[in-house]
């Protein structure tokens, strides 16, 4: 039953022995011990398991490993390298701009969906460097978040887009502000008033 499958994962070619109908997800997690793609539904409904296959986002939980034979798989761990290749950068940055933007926006809550969120956003930004709100919402609509972090993810995608266009410094972080305690009175911290 088991056959040898050749996969190029995050730039490294690996051969694994696996039943050809085994979903790619289980090969990535159990054989290669990657922690980006993760099990969410096994039904291609949620996006937890998303990876890029030759640059296009797919659901690894329903993609047989044989379908990835000879192709290039990029997981969350490989996003910076993939970005460097795309942009022909001399050095691989520590983070893909979307990863930096998600940190800057402190977008994550539990973070379980963020593998798929960032994979999908990276795909979107590679095809459309300057998406508007409507395009972001449409592209991201297949990626669910149970914690309700969509508004911050929306901001993070805009921020990453600005970084990639050089409109914003990549080191600039949001919300660096210090203590804002005003004695004996209520103060309002209105986040989205910006």
């Amino acid at each position: 039953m088991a056959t040898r499958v050749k996969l190029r994962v995050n730039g490294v070619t690996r051969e694994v022995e696996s039943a050809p109908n085994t979903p790619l997800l289980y090969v990535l997690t159990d054989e290669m011990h990657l922690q980006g793609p993760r099990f969410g539904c096994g039904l291609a409904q949620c996006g937890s398991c998303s990876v890029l296959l030759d640059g296009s986002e797919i659901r690894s939980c329903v993609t047989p490993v044989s379908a990835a034979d000879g192709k290039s798989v990029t997981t969350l761990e490989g996003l910076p390298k993939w970005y460097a290749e795309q942009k022909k950068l001399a050095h691989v940055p520590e983070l893909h701009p979307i990863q930096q933007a998600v940190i800057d926006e402190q977008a994550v809550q539990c973070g379980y969906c963020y593998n798929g969120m960032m994979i999908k956003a990276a795909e979107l930004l590679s095809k459309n460097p300057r998406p508007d709100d409507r395009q972001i919402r449409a592209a991201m609509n297949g990626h669910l978040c149970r914690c309700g972090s969509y508004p911050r993810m929306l901001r993070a995608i805009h921020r990453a887009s600005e970084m990639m266009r050089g409109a914003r410094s990549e080191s600039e972080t949001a919300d660096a502000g210090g203590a804002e305690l005003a004695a004996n009175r209520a103060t309002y911290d209105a986040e989205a008033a910006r």
Partner: protein
Amino acid sequence: MSRRNPEAMERSAESFTRAPKRPRGIDRRDFLKAGGALIIGFSSAGLMAGKLLAQGPPGFRMPGPDPRQIDTWLAIHSDNTATVYIGYVELGQGSTTSLLQVSAEELDFDLTQVSTVRVDTKISPNQGGTYSSSAIARGSPAIRQAAAEARQVLLQMASRRLGAPVDQLTVAKGVVSVMGTPGKSVTYGELIGDKRFDVTITGKAPLKPIAEYKLVGSRPPRNDIPAKVRGTYTYLQHLRLPGMLHGRIVRPRGQGAYGTGAKVKSLDETSIAHIPDARVLRKGDFVGVVAPREWDAVRAARDLKIEWDMPATLPGSDDVYAAMRADKTVDHIVLQRGDVDSAFAASSAAHTASGTYHGPYQAHACFGPNGALADVRADSALLICSSQDVYTTRGTVARLLGMKPEQVRAQYYEGSGTYGHSCYDDAAQAAAILSQLAGKPVRLQFMRWDEHGWDPYGPAHVGEVRIAADANGKIVAYQYDGWHHNWAAVESTEQLALGTPAAEWRLGMAQQVNPAQCGGMYNIPNIKLVNHQVDGLKYLKAAWLRSPLDLSFSFASEQTIDALARMLGMDAYAFRRMNIANERWQGVLDAVADAAKWEPRPPASRLSNAKVASGRGIALGTHLTSFGGAVAEIEVNKETGHVRVRRLYGAIDAGLAVNPAFIENQISGQLVQATSRMLLEEVTFNKTNVTSLDWNSYPILRFGECPEVTPIVVQRIDQRSTGAGEEVMAAAAGAIACAFFDATGVRMTEFPLTPKRVLAALRQS
């Protein structure tokens, strides 16, 4: 535990089974005094409050390290850093970082000098479960006091070392200096690095005055986010144990009535003979499969031929409210003040609004299904789980395994957000039984249909509410009657494996009509709240789901307040303001009204006949503590019945906000999740079993429909910190419902506001 490199495939058992970051130079086990001490002294109030769900008998002894010892809470290292031991788990809400802010503040350390370790029954203090948004409210006083006690001891040591009185000493970044003599200093690490304090907490150490706070109230970023973004964060779902098998449970697709459960009628083990490495494991009616390869376990669970005996005794989701309303109930007056009957009858009750409202069963629907790893040996067991209360989970698993709690070590790893008591205990029990039966370590992973189908849901609710006001708009009488059932006390695994009869929690907070949520935000002279408890064994298994029952209460109560305001011809904000209970409620009401630029105006439904009608609503809400307010701006397509929440404003007053940025993120999430629960979420079931088993049959709000949100933290540094993870949800639920009426002139009496339900309501009007 580096797992970034795909080549790094060798992972030792040690990396998983020891405390992940042992205090340097100290063996934590030797470091701790024996546990099992009676809880007395400084933290008893907080701890017992934290255990309000446990309802332990008098003299109940909390297991775990002795909370009276400084060493239980923190250790100072030679390199002038500290490890802080926290009994609350990280759920993505940022509480770990917040509690480090509190401890660093009190110790006069920098935030970079303090860290913590994961919650583990071998090393962590038992602070009770991470329930009721309690991590900061109940966690910070104990940690703050312990840090203050430690600082006091360190100052005395420094005084002797430096030959200067304590009141001449000053501390910055863990360096104690003599005032006016900058050269004369010693670090905490030099004073006690890697040695025990061996000091009992007195409860008398002075706490730092709030006016001197530098870290508490500031907005440092969360310490878990970088690893989560890089893909190096180890969620429970990533863990593997050496020599382990992959496990899956086999149950009917969708639970039946809690009281009757499910019985195996027939099981054909030969049906998975085509998967040679897979094995069926069974204990009573608990069935699972294990296999060395994960996909084999998944396939075996899928292919196993098994027939179940499940009686058709459920009312079905369409008839659940009528069934509850018709049930024989155990009635209980939760609150009675004044004379409600006379007040409603009096001539001063110029206007009375009333209605009957319905809220569905809703699921925790964890994004990554629950799981657990267990390594059960003859005389000990290791359990790695995502329990919000590892000590309680350890106790029930030990009982299931026939062990003493001390023989089981339970360790917490974060899974995906759980929003209350999801399947984490069920999964922990199931993993333990599978490992015991297999004689090997087992990693159990629930499948999506297990998680959706066997969740302990937030219970369905019927609310009848009646509110009267005088001619001037003062509320004079309020009555709320609520029908629902209690939470399940026995997990499905135990029920199936041992035949333990289903049982419910005794009546307690968050399972009954909530006085804080039902009228508590208004000044009402005559009020009566009655809880009608139906027999939960006839319905679905239930547990606490984020802001338990409060969305249903708010949907009923705040809509009735809204109706009363309209009868009086008053603005919905002004009517609430006029009847407000206190300045803290007023603070959040004003905050959201200001943010939304709320101005009085006629009902939107009278202004426009557009196909897509816009409306706005305002409401107040809470859970048990804290104060929440919300304004909703929505659109209703009257032809399709589609409701779109365009914008939400949410404010919370949770007393002293240790990290306002984290609370903003919590509010933002609550607003989005409340939108999802009001518009889409509903557990469906027929007479036999639950039928909403995935994201298609149990849809949640998607990116494309997400409202814009404005979170507002009302910072009150002179008030003690209270919960911030739930309280805006109920306010948002009420605001969305009130906005629907504003847009359409039609009152919705049942949620979620699905197109089908909306069209039916619009046609009836």
